[in-house]
Protein backbone atom coordinates (compact mmCIF):
# COMPACT_ATOMS: atom_id res chain seq x y z
CA UNK A 1 0.00 0.00 0.00
CA UNK A 2 2.60 2.57 1.10
CA UNK A 3 4.90 1.30 -1.61
CA UNK A 4 2.17 2.04 -4.11
CA UNK A 5 1.65 5.58 -2.80
CA UNK A 6 5.36 6.35 -2.72
CA UNK A 7 5.83 4.98 -6.21
CA UNK A 8 2.89 7.04 -7.39
CA UNK A 9 4.40 10.23 -5.96
CA UNK A 10 8.04 9.78 -6.93
CA UNK A 11 7.84 7.94 -10.22
CA UNK A 12 4.78 9.63 -11.67
CA UNK A 13 3.91 12.80 -9.78
CA UNK A 14 7.30 14.47 -9.37
CA UNK A 15 8.47 13.93 -13.00
CA UNK A 16 5.21 15.36 -14.32
CA UNK A 17 5.53 18.37 -12.04
CA UNK A 18 9.14 18.90 -13.10
CA UNK A 19 8.16 18.54 -16.74
CA UNK A 20 5.56 21.20 -16.23
CA UNK A 21 7.99 23.68 -14.68
CA UNK A 22 10.30 23.05 -17.64
CA UNK A 23 7.49 23.69 -20.13
CA UNK A 24 6.47 26.85 -18.31
CA UNK A 25 10.03 28.20 -18.18
CA UNK A 26 10.46 27.39 -21.88
CA UNK A 27 7.31 29.33 -22.80
CA UNK A 28 8.34 32.37 -20.79
CA UNK A 29 11.86 32.26 -22.25
CA UNK A 30 10.87 32.03 -25.90
CA UNK A 31 8.44 34.93 -25.40
CA UNK A 32 9.29 37.79 -27.74
CA UNK A 33 11.27 40.51 -26.01
CA UNK A 34 13.71 40.16 -23.11
CA UNK A 35 14.41 42.36 -20.10
CA UNK A 36 17.18 44.11 -22.06
CA UNK A 37 15.27 44.64 -25.33
CA UNK A 38 14.51 48.25 -24.46
CA UNK A 39 18.22 48.96 -23.96
CA UNK A 40 19.08 47.93 -27.53
CA UNK A 41 17.22 50.95 -28.91
CA UNK A 42 19.09 53.48 -26.80
CA UNK A 43 21.60 55.44 -28.96
CA UNK A 44 25.24 55.69 -27.84
CA UNK A 45 24.80 52.87 -25.37
CA UNK A 46 27.87 50.68 -25.39
CA UNK A 47 27.12 47.00 -26.10
CA UNK A 48 29.36 46.26 -23.12
CA UNK A 49 26.74 47.89 -20.88
CA UNK A 50 24.02 45.65 -22.26
CA UNK A 51 26.24 42.61 -21.80
CA UNK A 52 26.90 43.67 -18.24
CA UNK A 53 23.17 44.03 -17.53
CA UNK A 54 22.56 40.59 -19.08
CA UNK A 55 25.21 39.11 -16.83
CA UNK A 56 23.60 40.80 -13.83
CA UNK A 57 20.23 39.26 -14.64
CA UNK A 58 21.85 35.92 -15.42
CA UNK A 59 20.30 35.78 -18.90
CA UNK A 60 23.65 35.41 -20.66
CA UNK A 61 23.83 31.86 -19.31
CA UNK A 62 22.71 28.81 -21.30
CA UNK A 63 19.01 27.95 -21.02
CA UNK A 64 19.45 24.88 -18.85
CA UNK A 65 21.55 26.74 -16.28
CA UNK A 66 18.97 29.52 -16.09
CA UNK A 67 16.25 26.94 -15.64
CA UNK A 68 18.16 25.13 -12.91
CA UNK A 69 18.75 28.36 -11.04
CA UNK A 70 15.07 29.29 -11.28
CA UNK A 71 14.02 25.82 -10.16
CA UNK A 72 16.28 26.14 -7.12
CA UNK A 73 14.56 29.39 -6.21
CA UNK A 74 11.02 28.06 -6.45
CA UNK A 75 11.95 24.99 -4.41
CA UNK A 76 12.79 27.43 -1.61
CA UNK A 77 9.32 28.96 -2.20
CA UNK A 78 10.96 32.09 -3.53
CA UNK A 79 8.66 33.07 -6.40
CA UNK A 80 10.19 36.51 -6.78
CA UNK A 81 8.65 39.95 -6.53
CA UNK A 82 5.69 41.21 -8.55
CA UNK A 83 6.50 43.59 -11.42
CA UNK A 84 4.02 46.28 -10.40
CA UNK A 85 4.94 49.30 -8.29
CA UNK A 86 4.09 47.54 -5.02
CA UNK A 87 6.92 44.97 -5.62
CA UNK A 88 5.34 42.47 -3.23
CA UNK A 89 6.52 38.89 -2.88
CA UNK A 90 4.47 36.74 -5.28
CA UNK A 91 4.04 34.04 -2.66
CA UNK A 92 2.15 36.52 -0.41
CA UNK A 93 -0.14 37.63 -3.25
CA UNK A 94 -0.99 34.02 -4.02
CA UNK A 95 -1.51 33.20 -0.36
CA UNK A 96 -4.09 35.98 -0.08
CA UNK A 97 -6.09 34.82 -3.09
CA UNK A 98 -5.86 31.09 -2.66
CA UNK A 99 -8.56 30.57 0.02
CA UNK A 100 -11.29 32.10 -2.17
CA UNK A 101 -10.38 29.80 -5.08
CA UNK A 102 -10.27 26.74 -2.82
CA UNK A 103 -13.68 27.57 -1.31
CA UNK A 104 -15.21 28.08 -4.75
CA UNK A 105 -13.73 24.91 -6.28
CA UNK A 106 -14.40 22.69 -3.28
CA UNK A 107 -18.03 23.82 -3.05
CA UNK A 108 -18.51 23.14 -6.76
CA UNK A 109 -16.98 19.68 -6.41
CA UNK A 110 -19.29 18.92 -3.47
CA UNK A 111 -22.28 20.15 -5.49
CA UNK A 112 -21.23 18.21 -8.59
CA UNK A 113 -20.60 14.92 -6.79
CA UNK A 114 -23.47 15.38 -4.32
CA UNK A 115 -26.08 15.76 -7.04
CA UNK A 116 -24.40 13.93 -9.91
CA UNK A 117 -23.91 10.60 -8.11
CA UNK A 118 -27.52 10.04 -6.89
CA UNK A 119 -28.95 11.28 -10.19
CA UNK A 120 -26.67 8.98 -12.17
CA UNK A 121 -27.58 6.01 -9.95
CA UNK A 122 -31.32 6.57 -10.37
CA UNK A 123 -30.86 7.10 -14.10
CA UNK A 124 -29.12 3.71 -14.40
CA UNK A 125 -31.54 1.95 -12.03
CA UNK A 126 -34.49 3.07 -14.15
CA UNK A 127 -32.75 2.81 -17.52
CA UNK A 128 -34.91 3.85 -20.51
CA UNK A 129 -37.57 5.35 -18.22
CA UNK A 130 -38.84 8.89 -18.77
CA UNK A 131 -36.66 10.02 -15.85
CA UNK A 132 -33.61 8.50 -17.53
CA UNK A 133 -34.30 10.28 -20.82
CA UNK A 134 -34.82 13.63 -19.08
CA UNK A 135 -31.59 13.23 -17.11
CA UNK A 136 -29.65 12.16 -20.21
CA UNK A 137 -30.91 15.22 -22.07
CA UNK A 138 -30.09 17.60 -19.23
CA UNK A 139 -26.65 16.07 -18.84
CA UNK A 140 -26.01 16.97 -22.50
CA UNK A 141 -27.23 20.49 -21.83
CA UNK A 142 -25.01 20.71 -18.75
CA UNK A 143 -21.82 19.75 -20.59
CA UNK A 144 -22.65 21.92 -23.61
CA UNK A 145 -23.68 25.22 -22.06
CA UNK A 146 -20.67 27.53 -21.76
CA UNK A 147 -20.08 28.57 -18.15
CA UNK A 148 -19.66 32.20 -19.15
CA UNK A 149 -23.09 32.25 -20.79
CA UNK A 150 -24.80 30.31 -18.00
CA UNK A 151 -23.16 32.64 -15.48
CA UNK A 152 -24.42 35.72 -17.31
CA UNK A 153 -27.95 34.27 -17.43
CA UNK A 154 -27.90 33.60 -13.66
CA UNK A 155 -26.48 37.05 -13.04
CA UNK A 156 -29.20 38.60 -15.20
CA UNK A 157 -32.00 36.72 -13.46
CA UNK A 158 -31.04 36.58 -9.79
CA UNK A 159 -28.89 39.68 -9.34
CA UNK A 160 -30.11 42.19 -11.91
CA UNK A 161 -33.79 41.40 -12.52
CA UNK A 162 -35.04 39.93 -9.24
CA UNK A 163 -32.33 41.47 -7.11
CA UNK A 164 -32.22 38.61 -4.60
CA UNK A 165 -28.50 37.77 -4.70
CA UNK A 166 -25.33 39.88 -4.93
CA UNK A 167 -23.95 40.41 -8.47
CA UNK A 168 -20.47 39.28 -7.43
CA UNK A 169 -17.66 39.74 -4.97
CA UNK A 170 -17.08 37.89 -1.71
CA UNK A 171 -18.01 39.90 1.42
CA UNK A 172 -17.72 43.67 1.47
CA UNK A 173 -15.08 45.24 3.71
CA UNK A 174 -16.32 45.05 7.29
CA UNK A 175 -19.23 42.74 6.50
CA UNK A 176 -19.50 39.97 9.11
CA UNK A 177 -18.79 36.46 7.76
CA UNK A 178 -22.09 34.72 8.49
CA UNK A 179 -23.14 31.36 7.17
CA UNK A 180 -26.05 32.92 5.27
CA UNK A 181 -23.60 35.41 3.82
CA UNK A 182 -21.39 32.58 2.53
CA UNK A 183 -24.40 30.94 0.89
CA UNK A 184 -25.56 34.21 -0.70
CA UNK A 185 -22.18 35.00 -2.23
CA UNK A 186 -21.35 31.41 -3.17
CA UNK A 187 -24.67 30.37 -4.71
CA UNK A 188 -24.37 31.80 -8.22
CA UNK A 189 -20.64 31.17 -8.81
CA UNK A 190 -20.85 27.63 -7.42
CA UNK A 191 -23.92 26.82 -9.50
CA UNK A 192 -22.17 28.16 -12.62
CA UNK A 193 -18.98 26.21 -11.96
CA UNK A 194 -20.74 23.09 -10.65
CA UNK A 195 -23.27 22.57 -13.44
CA UNK A 196 -20.73 20.93 -15.74
CA UNK A 197 -19.53 18.61 -12.96
CA UNK A 198 -23.08 17.58 -12.05
CA UNK A 199 -23.66 16.65 -15.69
CA UNK A 200 -20.44 14.74 -16.23
CA UNK A 201 -20.52 12.95 -12.87
CA UNK A 202 -24.12 11.87 -13.56
CA UNK A 203 -23.13 10.53 -17.00
CA UNK A 204 -20.10 8.62 -15.64
CA UNK A 205 -22.06 7.26 -12.71
CA UNK A 206 -24.84 6.06 -15.00
CA UNK A 207 -22.56 4.25 -17.43
CA UNK A 208 -20.34 2.86 -14.67
CA UNK A 209 -23.35 1.36 -12.86
CA UNK A 210 -24.84 0.01 -16.10
CA UNK A 211 -21.56 -1.71 -16.91
CA UNK A 212 -21.43 -3.38 -13.49
CA UNK A 213 -25.09 -4.44 -13.73
CA UNK A 214 -24.14 -6.80 -16.58
CA UNK A 215 -21.55 -8.67 -14.53
CA UNK A 216 -21.97 -12.35 -13.74
CA UNK A 217 -21.86 -11.96 -9.96
CA UNK A 218 -24.98 -9.80 -10.13
CA UNK A 219 -26.81 -12.49 -12.03
CA UNK A 220 -25.79 -14.81 -9.20
CA UNK A 221 -27.09 -12.34 -6.62
CA UNK A 222 -30.41 -12.12 -8.45
CA UNK A 223 -30.54 -15.88 -8.92
CA UNK A 224 -30.26 -16.50 -5.22
CA UNK A 225 -33.39 -14.40 -4.81
CA UNK A 226 -32.14 -11.06 -3.53
CA UNK A 227 -34.43 -8.14 -4.02
CA UNK A 228 -33.48 -5.90 -6.94
CA UNK A 229 -32.87 -2.90 -4.65
CA UNK A 230 -30.33 -4.84 -2.62
CA UNK A 231 -28.65 -6.11 -5.77
CA UNK A 232 -28.33 -2.59 -7.18
CA UNK A 233 -27.68 -0.43 -4.14
CA UNK A 234 -25.49 -2.85 -2.23
CA UNK A 235 -23.74 -5.27 -4.54
CA UNK A 236 -23.47 -3.25 -7.74
CA UNK A 237 -23.06 0.24 -6.37
CA UNK A 238 -19.91 -0.48 -4.36
CA UNK A 239 -18.09 -1.59 -7.47
CA UNK A 240 -19.57 1.10 -9.69
CA UNK A 241 -18.41 3.86 -7.35
CA UNK A 242 -14.74 2.91 -7.74
CA UNK A 243 -14.16 4.49 -11.18
CA UNK A 244 -15.92 7.63 -9.94
CA UNK A 245 -13.13 8.11 -7.38
CA UNK A 246 -10.53 8.32 -10.14
CA UNK A 247 -12.74 10.74 -12.02
CA UNK A 248 -12.01 13.20 -9.22
CA UNK A 249 -8.36 13.46 -10.22
CA UNK A 250 -9.24 13.89 -13.88
CA UNK A 251 -11.80 16.59 -13.25
CA UNK A 252 -9.70 18.84 -11.06
CA UNK A 253 -7.97 20.59 -14.01
CA UNK A 254 -11.37 21.20 -15.60
CA UNK A 255 -12.72 22.68 -12.36
CA UNK A 256 -9.76 25.04 -12.04
CA UNK A 257 -10.04 26.05 -15.72
CA UNK A 258 -13.68 26.87 -15.15
CA UNK A 259 -12.82 28.77 -11.96
CA UNK A 260 -10.76 31.25 -13.98
CA UNK A 261 -13.81 32.18 -16.05
CA UNK A 262 -16.32 32.04 -13.20
CA UNK A 263 -14.16 34.20 -10.94
CA UNK A 264 -13.94 36.67 -13.78
CA UNK A 265 -17.73 36.86 -14.22
CA UNK A 266 -18.53 37.23 -10.53
CA UNK A 267 -15.49 39.35 -9.58
CA UNK A 268 -14.51 36.58 -7.17
CA UNK A 269 -11.27 37.51 -5.36
CA UNK A 270 -9.41 34.28 -6.17
CA UNK A 271 -6.37 33.14 -8.16
CA UNK A 272 -8.29 33.23 -11.46
CA UNK A 273 -9.09 36.91 -11.31
CA UNK A 274 -5.55 37.57 -10.06
CA UNK A 275 -4.29 35.73 -13.16
CA UNK A 276 -6.33 37.89 -15.55
CA UNK A 277 -5.24 41.05 -13.76
CA UNK A 278 -1.58 39.98 -13.88
CA UNK A 279 -1.84 39.06 -17.58
CA UNK A 280 -3.25 42.48 -18.41
CA UNK A 281 -0.31 44.09 -16.58
CA UNK A 282 2.18 41.59 -18.11
CA UNK A 283 3.19 40.80 -14.56
CA UNK A 284 5.11 37.62 -15.40
CA UNK A 285 6.38 36.60 -11.94
CA UNK A 286 2.78 36.54 -10.71
CA UNK A 287 1.65 34.54 -13.76
CA UNK A 288 4.42 31.98 -13.27
CA UNK A 289 3.52 31.70 -9.60
CA UNK A 290 -0.17 31.12 -10.31
CA UNK A 291 0.57 28.50 -12.95
CA UNK A 292 2.88 26.68 -10.53
CA UNK A 293 0.33 26.91 -7.72
CA UNK A 294 -2.37 25.32 -9.84
CA UNK A 295 0.04 22.59 -10.95
CA UNK A 296 0.81 21.78 -7.31
CA UNK A 297 -2.89 21.79 -6.35
CA UNK A 298 -3.70 19.40 -9.17
CA UNK A 299 -0.76 17.19 -8.27
CA UNK A 300 -2.01 16.97 -4.67
CA UNK A 301 -5.58 16.38 -5.85
CA UNK A 302 -4.61 13.49 -8.11
CA UNK A 303 -2.51 11.93 -5.33
CA UNK A 304 -5.49 12.12 -2.95
CA UNK A 305 -7.76 10.58 -5.60
CA UNK A 306 -5.28 7.74 -6.24
CA UNK A 307 -4.68 7.04 -2.57
CA UNK A 308 -8.38 6.92 -1.78
CA UNK A 309 -8.79 4.57 -4.73
CA UNK A 310 -6.07 2.34 -3.34
CA UNK A 311 -7.81 2.30 0.04
CA UNK A 312 -11.17 1.49 -1.53
CA UNK A 313 -10.02 -1.23 -3.92
CA UNK A 314 -8.11 -4.09 -2.25
CA UNK A 315 -6.91 -5.34 -5.66
CA UNK A 316 -4.57 -2.32 -5.92
CA UNK A 317 -2.78 -3.04 -2.65
CA UNK A 318 -1.29 -6.36 -3.65
CA UNK A 319 0.01 -5.36 -7.05
Amino acid at each position, binding site marked *: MWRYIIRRIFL*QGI*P*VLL*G*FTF*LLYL*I*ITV*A*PGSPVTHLRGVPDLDTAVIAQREAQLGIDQPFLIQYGRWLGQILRLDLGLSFDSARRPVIDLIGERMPATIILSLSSIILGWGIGIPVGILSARYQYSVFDYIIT*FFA*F*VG*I*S*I*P*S*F*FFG*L*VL*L*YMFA*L*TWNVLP*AGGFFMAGEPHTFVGYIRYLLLPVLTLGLGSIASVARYMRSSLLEVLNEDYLRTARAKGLRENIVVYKHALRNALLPILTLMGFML*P*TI*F*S*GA*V*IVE*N*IFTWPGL*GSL*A*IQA*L*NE*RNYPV*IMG*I*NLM*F*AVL*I*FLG*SIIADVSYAFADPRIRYE
Partner: protein
Amino acid sequence: MKQISQSKKIWRRFCRNKLAILGLVILIFFVLVSVFAPFLTNYDPNRSNLRNRNLPPSGDHLFGTDDMGRDIFARTLYGGRISLSVGLVSVGISLSIGVVLGAVAGFFGGMFDTVIMRIADVFYSFPFMILAITISSIFGPSIYNTMIILGILSWPSSARLLRAEFLKLKNTDFALAATTIGANPSRVMFRHILPNAISPLLVSATLGVASAILSEAGLSFLGLGVPPPAPSWGNMLNRARPLHILASMPWMWLPPGIAIFVIVLSINFVGDGLRDAFDPRQVMNE
Protein backbone atom coordinates in the same frame (compact mmCIF):
# COMPACT_ATOMS: atom_id res chain seq x y z
CA MET B 1 -29.47 -12.47 -48.39
CA LYS B 2 -28.10 -9.16 -49.59
CA GLN B 3 -24.79 -8.04 -48.16
CA ILE B 4 -24.90 -4.64 -46.46
CA SER B 5 -21.67 -2.67 -46.39
CA GLN B 6 -20.15 -1.71 -43.06
CA SER B 7 -20.58 2.03 -43.57
CA LYS B 8 -24.23 1.57 -44.46
CA LYS B 9 -24.76 -0.39 -41.26
CA ILE B 10 -23.13 2.36 -39.25
CA TRP B 11 -25.24 5.00 -40.97
CA ARG B 12 -28.42 3.03 -40.20
CA ARG B 13 -27.47 2.72 -36.55
CA PHE B 14 -26.70 6.44 -36.46
CA CYS B 15 -30.13 7.20 -37.93
CA ARG B 16 -31.92 5.31 -35.18
CA ASN B 17 -30.59 7.85 -32.68
CA LYS B 18 -33.04 10.75 -32.88
CA LEU B 19 -30.89 13.19 -30.91
CA ALA B 20 -27.94 12.51 -33.21
CA ILE B 21 -30.06 13.25 -36.29
CA LEU B 22 -31.36 16.41 -34.66
CA GLY B 23 -27.79 17.44 -33.88
CA LEU B 24 -26.66 16.73 -37.44
CA VAL B 25 -29.50 18.82 -38.90
CA ILE B 26 -28.75 21.77 -36.61
CA LEU B 27 -25.05 21.49 -37.33
CA ILE B 28 -25.61 21.52 -41.10
CA PHE B 29 -27.88 24.53 -40.64
CA PHE B 30 -25.11 26.38 -38.75
CA VAL B 31 -22.53 25.53 -41.39
CA LEU B 32 -24.76 26.70 -44.24
CA VAL B 33 -25.76 29.88 -42.44
CA SER B 34 -22.17 30.90 -41.73
CA VAL B 35 -20.92 29.95 -45.20
CA PHE B 36 -23.70 31.94 -46.90
CA ALA B 37 -23.68 34.79 -44.36
CA PRO B 38 -23.14 37.50 -47.03
CA PHE B 39 -26.35 36.42 -48.78
CA LEU B 40 -28.40 36.47 -45.59
CA THR B 41 -27.64 39.97 -44.40
CA ASN B 42 -26.80 43.25 -46.09
CA TYR B 43 -24.91 44.58 -43.10
CA ASP B 44 -21.15 44.52 -42.75
CA PRO B 45 -20.48 42.90 -39.34
CA ASN B 46 -17.63 45.30 -38.60
CA ARG B 47 -19.18 48.52 -39.86
CA SER B 48 -20.23 50.74 -36.97
CA ASN B 49 -22.91 53.37 -37.32
CA LEU B 50 -22.79 55.67 -34.33
CA ARG B 51 -26.25 57.05 -34.98
CA ASN B 52 -27.79 53.59 -34.57
CA ARG B 53 -26.26 52.53 -31.25
CA ASN B 54 -27.97 50.21 -28.75
CA LEU B 55 -31.10 49.70 -30.87
CA PRO B 56 -33.47 46.92 -29.76
CA PRO B 57 -34.43 44.25 -32.34
CA SER B 58 -36.59 45.60 -35.17
CA GLY B 59 -37.40 44.92 -38.83
CA ASP B 60 -34.25 46.81 -39.87
CA HIS B 61 -31.93 45.11 -37.38
CA LEU B 62 -33.29 41.65 -36.63
CA PHE B 63 -31.24 41.21 -33.42
CA GLY B 64 -30.73 44.94 -32.77
CA THR B 65 -27.39 46.75 -32.68
CA ASP B 66 -24.52 46.89 -30.18
CA ASP B 67 -22.93 49.83 -28.39
CA MET B 68 -21.00 50.77 -31.55
CA GLY B 69 -24.04 50.57 -33.79
CA ARG B 70 -23.02 47.27 -35.46
CA ASP B 71 -25.74 44.88 -36.58
CA ILE B 72 -25.86 41.96 -34.14
CA PHE B 73 -27.57 39.57 -36.58
CA ALA B 74 -24.69 40.03 -39.03
CA ARG B 75 -22.10 39.65 -36.28
CA THR B 76 -23.76 36.45 -35.05
CA LEU B 77 -23.77 34.96 -38.58
CA TYR B 78 -20.13 35.84 -39.25
CA GLY B 79 -19.19 34.72 -35.74
CA GLY B 80 -20.15 31.20 -36.82
CA ARG B 81 -17.35 31.29 -39.41
CA ILE B 82 -14.80 32.08 -36.72
CA SER B 83 -16.08 29.45 -34.28
CA LEU B 84 -16.24 26.69 -36.89
CA SER B 85 -12.88 27.48 -38.45
CA VAL B 86 -11.11 27.71 -35.08
CA GLY B 87 -12.79 24.44 -34.07
CA LEU B 88 -11.79 22.58 -37.24
CA VAL B 89 -8.25 23.93 -37.58
CA SER B 90 -7.32 23.42 -33.94
CA VAL B 91 -8.64 19.86 -33.98
CA GLY B 92 -6.67 19.31 -37.20
CA ILE B 93 -3.50 20.46 -35.45
CA SER B 94 -4.10 18.38 -32.34
CA LEU B 95 -4.97 15.29 -34.40
CA SER B 96 -1.85 15.50 -36.56
CA ILE B 97 0.37 15.72 -33.47
CA GLY B 98 -1.67 13.21 -31.47
CA VAL B 99 -1.92 10.60 -34.24
CA VAL B 100 1.81 10.51 -34.94
CA LEU B 101 2.90 10.52 -31.28
CA GLY B 102 0.18 8.10 -30.18
CA ALA B 103 0.97 5.69 -33.01
CA VAL B 104 4.70 5.76 -32.29
CA ALA B 105 4.14 5.28 -28.54
CA GLY B 106 1.77 2.37 -29.04
CA PHE B 107 3.63 0.65 -31.87
CA PHE B 108 7.21 0.85 -30.69
CA GLY B 109 6.57 0.89 -26.93
CA GLY B 110 9.55 0.97 -24.55
CA MET B 111 11.38 4.27 -24.21
CA PHE B 112 9.26 5.96 -26.91
CA ASP B 113 6.13 5.07 -25.03
CA THR B 114 7.41 6.21 -21.63
CA VAL B 115 8.74 9.54 -22.84
CA ILE B 116 5.75 10.45 -25.04
CA MET B 117 3.19 9.47 -22.45
CA ARG B 118 4.97 11.35 -19.67
CA ILE B 119 4.94 14.47 -21.87
CA ALA B 120 1.25 13.86 -22.49
CA ASP B 121 0.70 13.62 -18.71
CA VAL B 122 2.34 17.02 -18.28
CA PHE B 123 -0.14 18.58 -20.70
CA TYR B 124 -3.05 16.57 -19.40
CA SER B 125 -2.64 17.30 -15.73
CA PHE B 126 -2.87 21.00 -16.15
CA PRO B 127 -5.73 23.50 -16.09
CA PHE B 128 -5.95 24.11 -19.79
CA MET B 129 -7.48 27.58 -19.51
CA ILE B 130 -4.71 29.02 -17.32
CA LEU B 131 -1.93 27.82 -19.58
CA ALA B 132 -3.89 28.96 -22.65
CA ILE B 133 -4.40 32.50 -21.35
CA THR B 134 -0.76 32.67 -20.30
CA ILE B 135 0.53 31.67 -23.74
CA SER B 136 -2.00 33.84 -25.53
CA SER B 137 -1.07 36.93 -23.55
CA ILE B 138 2.67 36.34 -24.08
CA PHE B 139 2.43 35.88 -27.84
CA GLY B 140 -0.45 38.30 -28.31
CA PRO B 141 -4.06 37.24 -28.91
CA SER B 142 -5.00 36.54 -32.54
CA ILE B 143 -7.20 34.06 -34.35
CA TYR B 144 -4.16 32.08 -35.59
CA ASN B 145 -2.54 31.99 -32.17
CA THR B 146 -5.84 30.79 -30.74
CA MET B 147 -5.97 27.91 -33.23
CA ILE B 148 -2.34 26.96 -32.53
CA ILE B 149 -2.70 27.18 -28.74
CA LEU B 150 -5.87 25.08 -28.67
CA GLY B 151 -4.29 22.55 -31.05
CA ILE B 152 -1.03 22.20 -29.18
CA LEU B 153 -2.63 21.98 -25.75
CA SER B 154 -5.14 19.29 -26.66
CA TRP B 155 -3.10 16.66 -28.56
CA PRO B 156 -2.63 14.34 -25.55
CA SER B 157 -6.21 13.05 -25.60
CA SER B 158 -5.99 11.78 -29.19
CA ALA B 159 -2.47 10.47 -28.52
CA ARG B 160 -3.69 8.44 -25.54
CA LEU B 161 -6.61 7.10 -27.50
CA LEU B 162 -4.52 6.08 -30.48
CA ARG B 163 -1.83 4.54 -28.28
CA ALA B 164 -4.44 2.29 -26.71
CA GLU B 165 -5.76 1.27 -30.14
CA PHE B 166 -2.24 0.53 -31.41
CA LEU B 167 -1.40 -1.56 -28.35
CA LYS B 168 -4.50 -3.59 -29.09
CA LEU B 169 -3.99 -3.88 -32.84
CA LYS B 170 -0.24 -4.26 -33.28
CA ASN B 171 -0.30 -7.97 -32.39
CA THR B 172 -3.29 -8.86 -34.54
CA ASP B 173 -2.72 -11.32 -37.38
CA PHE B 174 -3.09 -8.78 -40.16
CA ALA B 175 -0.52 -6.43 -38.64
CA LEU B 176 1.97 -9.25 -38.03
CA ALA B 177 1.36 -10.53 -41.56
CA ALA B 178 2.13 -7.12 -43.01
CA THR B 179 5.38 -6.98 -41.05
CA THR B 180 6.28 -10.51 -42.09
CA ILE B 181 5.98 -9.81 -45.78
CA GLY B 182 8.46 -6.98 -45.28
CA ALA B 183 6.36 -3.83 -45.01
CA ASN B 184 8.32 -1.15 -43.18
CA PRO B 185 7.04 0.04 -39.78
CA SER B 186 5.56 3.32 -41.03
CA ARG B 187 3.59 1.43 -43.69
CA VAL B 188 2.27 -1.06 -41.13
CA MET B 189 1.39 1.75 -38.77
CA PHE B 190 -0.34 4.14 -41.11
CA ARG B 191 -1.63 1.93 -43.93
CA HIS B 192 -2.61 -1.20 -42.02
CA ILE B 193 -3.30 -0.33 -38.38
CA LEU B 194 -4.49 3.28 -38.54
CA PRO B 195 -7.52 2.60 -40.78
CA ASN B 196 -8.75 0.14 -38.16
CA ALA B 197 -8.47 2.75 -35.43
CA ILE B 198 -10.33 5.41 -37.36
CA SER B 199 -13.73 5.13 -35.69
CA PRO B 200 -12.76 6.03 -32.10
CA LEU B 201 -10.57 8.75 -33.55
CA LEU B 202 -13.49 10.21 -35.48
CA VAL B 203 -15.65 10.27 -32.35
CA SER B 204 -12.96 11.98 -30.33
CA ALA B 205 -12.32 14.49 -33.15
CA THR B 206 -16.02 15.36 -33.30
CA LEU B 207 -16.23 15.93 -29.56
CA GLY B 208 -12.91 17.79 -29.82
CA VAL B 209 -14.45 20.33 -32.21
CA ALA B 210 -17.16 21.03 -29.64
CA SER B 211 -14.69 21.60 -26.84
CA ALA B 212 -12.43 23.72 -29.09
CA ILE B 213 -15.39 25.97 -29.93
CA LEU B 214 -16.11 26.30 -26.20
CA SER B 215 -12.47 27.08 -25.44
CA GLU B 216 -12.21 29.68 -28.19
CA ALA B 217 -15.33 31.40 -26.92
CA GLY B 218 -13.98 31.25 -23.36
CA LEU B 219 -10.63 32.73 -24.37
CA SER B 220 -12.33 35.47 -26.39
CA PHE B 221 -14.69 36.12 -23.47
CA LEU B 222 -11.62 36.78 -21.31
CA GLY B 223 -10.24 39.07 -24.04
CA LEU B 224 -7.40 36.65 -24.87
CA GLY B 225 -8.78 34.80 -27.89
CA VAL B 226 -9.98 36.31 -31.15
CA PRO B 227 -9.47 40.07 -30.75
CA PRO B 228 -12.15 42.61 -31.75
CA PRO B 229 -13.32 43.99 -34.14
CA ALA B 230 -13.58 40.48 -35.69
CA PRO B 231 -16.97 39.11 -34.65
CA SER B 232 -16.47 36.09 -32.41
CA TRP B 233 -19.31 34.88 -30.18
CA GLY B 234 -16.98 34.97 -27.19
CA ASN B 235 -15.85 38.56 -27.67
CA MET B 236 -19.45 39.65 -28.35
CA LEU B 237 -20.35 38.27 -24.91
CA ASN B 238 -17.32 40.00 -23.44
CA ARG B 239 -18.49 43.32 -24.88
CA ALA B 240 -21.93 42.91 -23.32
CA ARG B 241 -20.59 42.37 -19.80
CA PRO B 242 -20.98 45.84 -18.27
CA LEU B 243 -23.88 45.44 -15.84
CA HIS B 244 -26.08 48.11 -17.46
CA ILE B 245 -25.89 46.33 -20.84
CA LEU B 246 -26.43 42.96 -19.19
CA ALA B 247 -29.47 44.23 -17.29
CA SER B 248 -31.27 46.25 -19.94
CA MET B 249 -30.04 45.11 -23.38
CA PRO B 250 -30.28 41.32 -23.47
CA TRP B 251 -30.30 41.33 -27.29
CA MET B 252 -26.56 42.02 -27.17
CA TRP B 253 -25.63 38.86 -25.28
CA LEU B 254 -28.43 36.36 -25.84
CA PRO B 255 -27.77 35.63 -29.57
CA PRO B 256 -24.05 34.82 -29.29
CA GLY B 257 -24.58 32.89 -26.04
CA ILE B 258 -27.42 30.80 -27.44
CA ALA B 259 -25.44 30.23 -30.65
CA ILE B 260 -22.44 28.78 -28.76
CA PHE B 261 -24.70 26.64 -26.60
CA VAL B 262 -26.73 25.23 -29.50
CA ILE B 263 -23.76 24.48 -31.78
CA VAL B 264 -21.83 22.76 -28.98
CA LEU B 265 -24.92 20.80 -27.95
CA SER B 266 -25.55 19.64 -31.52
CA ILE B 267 -21.93 18.56 -32.04
CA ASN B 268 -22.06 16.63 -28.77
CA PHE B 269 -25.25 14.88 -29.95
CA VAL B 270 -23.55 13.93 -33.22
CA GLY B 271 -20.41 12.73 -31.45
CA ASP B 272 -22.41 10.59 -29.05
CA GLY B 273 -24.47 9.18 -31.93
CA LEU B 274 -21.27 8.28 -33.79
CA ARG B 275 -19.87 6.55 -30.73
CA ASP B 276 -22.97 4.36 -30.44
CA ALA B 277 -23.09 3.72 -34.19
CA PHE B 278 -19.46 2.57 -34.33
CA ASP B 279 -19.86 0.34 -31.30
CA PRO B 280 -19.88 -3.22 -32.61
CA ARG B 281 -21.56 -4.40 -29.41
CA GLN B 282 -24.74 -2.65 -30.51
CA VAL B 283 -26.96 -5.45 -31.77
CA MET B 284 -28.60 -4.77 -35.06
CA ASN B 285 -31.93 -6.32 -35.85
CA GLU B 286 -32.13 -6.16 -39.62
